């Protein structure tokens, strides 16, 4: 059954285990490809991961003059092919979230490939595998729909920005607000 990466931003504790684990995926050359930010560091301890959302119509791939960014049949937007990438960094500029990273020594872009050799076989990417808080989850569409129903605020919106943030994405995101709309047990 097809599973997707799903982000429950409110759960993040800023441990950056996802960054450490990213380096552990075979083919990632021990470089991490995601980000974790302190949302408002002088005020509270809220943090959030920023992951590639694997756009259905990815700006990074569209902007690539060398067609180095391939889209896998699962929808995962892969890292630039080493033999094609010309190091122009168009992709980083084009991405609405600035996801692709750049290796200045090798003059090559690298980005999240959703640990394609794991995720194509149904195994969660490393980040979602280790995430201690379930900020990063690996769910079926049915499970995501259940969450959408559960946290329905009955105001025409889900607590996430739906249907999507910028363009349609393969990764689904629930913005902070998981506790809104939960009915308490007692």
């Amino acid at each position, binding site marked *: 059954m097809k599973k997707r990466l799903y982000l429950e931003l*409110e759960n993040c504790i800023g441990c950056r285990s996802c960054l*450490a684990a990213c380096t552990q995926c075979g083919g990632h050359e021990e470089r991490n490809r995601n980000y974790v930010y302190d949302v408002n560091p*002088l005020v509270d301890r809220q943090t959030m991961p920023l992951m590639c959302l694997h756009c259905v119509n990815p700006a990074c791939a569209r902007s690539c003059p060398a067609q180095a960014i391939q889209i896998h049949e699962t929808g995962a937007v892969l890292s630039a092919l080493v033999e094609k990438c010309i190091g122009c960094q168009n992709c980083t500029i084009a991405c609405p979230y600035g996801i692709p990273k750049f290796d200045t020594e090798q003059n090559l872009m690298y980005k999240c490939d959703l640990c394609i050799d794991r995720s194509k*076989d149904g195994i969660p990417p490393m980040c979602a*595998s*280790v995430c*201690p808080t379930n900020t990063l989850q690996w769910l079926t569409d049915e499970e995501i729909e259940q969450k959408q129903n559960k946290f329905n605020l009955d105001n025409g919106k889900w607590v996430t920005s739906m249907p999507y943030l910028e363009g349609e994405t393969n990764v689904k995101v629930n913005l902070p607000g998981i506790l809104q709309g*939960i009915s308490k047990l007692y």
Partner: protein
Amino acid sequence: MHMDNYKNPRDNFFKEIENINHPDETLVPTHCSYCAMQCGMNLRVNTKTNKIIGVEPRYDWPVTLGKMCPKGVTAYQQTNHPDRLLKPLIRDDASLKGTKKGFREASWEEAYDLIVKKFKQLQADYGKDSLSVYGGVSMTNEKCYLNGKFARVALQTKYLDYNGRFCMASAASGINRSLGIDRGSTVPWTDIPETDCLFLAGSNTADCHPTMMFRVWAVQERGGYLIVVDPRETPVARRADVHLDLRPGTDLALANGILHILIKNGHTDDDFVKKHTNGFEETKELVKQFTPEYTSQITGVAPEKIIKAAELYGKAPNAILLFARGIEQQVKGVDNVSAYINLALVTGNIGRPKAGVGTITGQGNGQGGREHGQKADALPGYRKITDPEHVKEVAKVWGIEPEEMPGEGVSAFELFGLMEKKVIRSMYLLCSNPVVSAPDSNYVRKVLKQLDFMVVSDFFLSESAEYGDVVLPTTTWSEDEGTTTNVEGRVIKINRAQMPLGESKPDWLIQVELAERLGRGKYFSHLKTSEDVFNELRLASKGGKADYYGVTWEKIKKQDGVFWPCTKEEDPGTPHMFLDKKFYFPDGKAKILALPYVPAAEEPDEEFPLHLTTGRVVYHYLSGNQTRRIQFLKDMCPEPFVEVHPETAKKYDIEHEERVRLFTRRGEVIYKVKLTEAIRKDTLFVPYHWDFEQAANILTNPALDPISKMPEFKACAAQIEKLEMKKVQ
């Protein structure tokens, strides 16, 4: 080497996944080297070089489901780290103690000969008790057990203690006093998401035990409640339904105040209290004065928050109450623990699934390591060295006469006092780094420097090893096998993934070989493997409270760990404690205790007007001897800092990232300021994982809890000062 002694049931499934099973690699299932969550992990081992090269999630481990914190993900980088000690080191020039200088590599034979010569000489000159052993609980049960036997039988000294005194000692004493047995947690961790109200007292769970966070959040996602007690708005407190933001050191008043409301508002389970507890009436009388207003005056927590927390806990169909170092590392740590357990006892929230109490143990084997006789007053199976019957039972297993058993010694910090007085002339330190982890570190350093002879066993040259005359290279957790007992009280198996690097040896083997050279071989030579040690531990614990007799390595493998007590081979173990409502006292009743409030040993005053509390960050573990060497963790948090509320900072005219002088009666340290509104205005916080000039424990107060001998790391009085001001003066 036996890679196949733990069969992963999903092995066949994973074989197909190319990203998990790489060519020329094998996966060895084991657990993390760090905290008591003991997260499951698979170590990736290159089959050509036989070296550990990475980590893979262990999805089928029921406690953590493949999850790991950043320390866990990078833990494997310790094993083949360039800083590893590969040969014994000897330092001939004692004047260089306290530095990294003057060590030369030596053979094991030369190191052993020197140790034996020095130990024998000191004992001849000053008596058996001139030697001391200082252990730690990041070691396996096998090593912790053997360390106790080594001190008492091989060295024949009474001066043995361990770093659990800085970790779980208050929890152990408090739980024993209230419930009669210290099985850390009365419920397995898999119960947490099923409870209706989770009460966390003095636990910065998100930073200290990250991999239990998915279960914590699950409580709220189900519609349950989360209550957090902490002077700081930590990542877990940030999302709490009630955050009780108390002044450091006032937990006992807060617990009494909550108990006051529980009784006043009729949330007590009178039937449970009557049938299964003693002490309710007396306690009820004592907490009468702890009205919300009175409690608020002491704790600084708003009365309505105290009432709300009590109501939520009191009304919960099932509640789990967990506590950690925040309440335990105080001069009244034991009373704090019992005061929180009182809440569970009066509401009957104990002795059934989804309801219970527990301490969130810090060190990897904090639970098992405190049960089997590595402590000044303890013998295996949680027996007492002061009880002649207990001594007789253990002496029989060890093959010594009961009269030969040394008496009760003193606690870890008190050992330093006896070293200062020259009662103790030597220390054999293993698996601990007290120069960083003990309070008042300037004093500790001074004392260690005076020792006649010190032996340190470690795999890195720790700050404490810098005081050694001999340093023995020991193995990391991944180069030996054995058991640990996790935060739940579940005995689990650590598997060996790589042969020991260089000439390093596991501590149990070092102790067997030393015992032989000390002429005590007949008590140790039969222990050829760590499983031999475990089987002797089973016998030595048999009949004690922490009875491991029925735990076998085979059974651990078969059923994903075994919860003690497990008294017989056919006994599957005890995931839930007290299901029969029988507590471990002669009348079977738990103790509700009347505990009068006392303030911290050092309260703020004019000279030192702020509270200082210490704790951890998610990227580092304990004294940092391991994690400060791991690049990723170092990059994420390279140095300590002092957290200051912006309003407080304004008063002192200090800014974010400015360096300030932080000082207490014991010393001063210069820290970078981290401004955050997520801390009380009257409180400062410093993480304690760093050494020397940056050590938080230069500042902390060594006042000890009278029962557990736990130092008061969590509360002392401090002052900050702008650096430039000093120059001007």
